[in-house]
């Protein structure tokens, strides 16, 4: 533990920090923000390389190359996913329905190896006690559970109560989408 060695360690740490900051920034926000399993692995890989570079076990250049290659691969990957539907589906999978039209989808639960209690807990986290209110609940590729409620279970909108708002909804409906399914129960 001589001062020279410690100083070198500190300098390498600063250099690596700056590099990682640049790399993560260039990879874009979603690298770690909206985690899929793959994003997590990339973060782990980057973190793992850093260790040896800071302690000087690996030449700076080699470490930088390793980091750059991983980053470039992830960058290329996200472009590929963006351009090609099939690629993304292989990489990330597709969302799995776990509740549909008020009933648990046992095939979905089984596929995701999720037990009933966990599924119900996830729904409760979103404020749902009654399964019947659920039109479609899915386990998304990033592990989150998305819930689309039945129309009658949605909170009231201003457009349901005020005529001016309703008019606005009518206008918007013809612009962006069909509007929600109008199923009365």
């Amino acid at each position, binding site marked *: 533990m001589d001062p020279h060695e*410690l100083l070198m360690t500190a300098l390498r740490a600063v250099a690596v*920090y700056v590099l990682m900051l640049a790399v993560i920034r260039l990879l874009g*926000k*979603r690298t770690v923000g909206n985690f899929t399993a793959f994003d997590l692995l990339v973060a782990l890989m980057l*973190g793992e390389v850093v260790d040896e570079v800071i302690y000087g076990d690996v030449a700076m250049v080699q470490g930088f190359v390793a980091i750059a290659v991983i980053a470039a691969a992830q960058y290329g990957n996200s472009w590929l996913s963006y351009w090609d539907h099939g690629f993304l589906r292989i990489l990330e999978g597709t969302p799995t329905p776990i509740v549909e039209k008020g009933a648990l989808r046992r095939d979905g639960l089984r596929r995701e190896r999720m037990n009933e209690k966990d599924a119900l807990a996830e729904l409760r986290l979103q404020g749902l006690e009654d399964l019947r209110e659920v039109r479609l609940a899915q386990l998304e590729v990033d592990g989150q*559970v998305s819930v689309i409620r039945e129309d009658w279970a949605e909170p009231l909108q201003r457009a349901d109560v*005020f005529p001016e708002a309703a008019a606005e909804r009518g206008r918007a409906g013809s612009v962006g989408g069909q509007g929600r399914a109008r199923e009365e129960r």
Partner: protein
Amino acid sequence: MELCQVAVRALFAYVVLLGLLRASGKRTVAQGTPFDFVLALVLGDMVDDLLWAEVPAGRFTVAVGTLTLVHTLVSVATARSERLDRLLAGEPVPVLERGRPRADAVRGERIHPSELERMLRVEGVPREAWAEVRRATVEVSGHPAVAREPWAEPPQRRERARVRPAP
């Protein structure tokens, strides 16, 4: 004896990391940005090296300490300078406006259409109801933020008087 030594090293690592994290302030690490995450991974990795005595405690301290110090300095600097913050962290990017995806933004962030759908589905907005969304943004941290059109929001209590009683 060997176990005792492992325990001492573990205690050293724990105390040092705890001290560093507390000294750097809560905001620096708890922001949950992509970089914070990778940094946490690196720090954890270094603890492993110390635990098995592959690294002397002094060097471990300098390594984790320097990383934390630079991180803290950057945090202080970005808090003081908006321009630096934007440079380092980027800006929130609107990806959907008035029910329509913004092609340039979506391409820039390399968001696949299915990801955009997922972002909104998690907020409870199915594809058919995209018209209800005034703006969907990808925040600096990578998380999506969805704001609905006023007419799609529930009425607020202050608008009580305007509600016609049910017939």
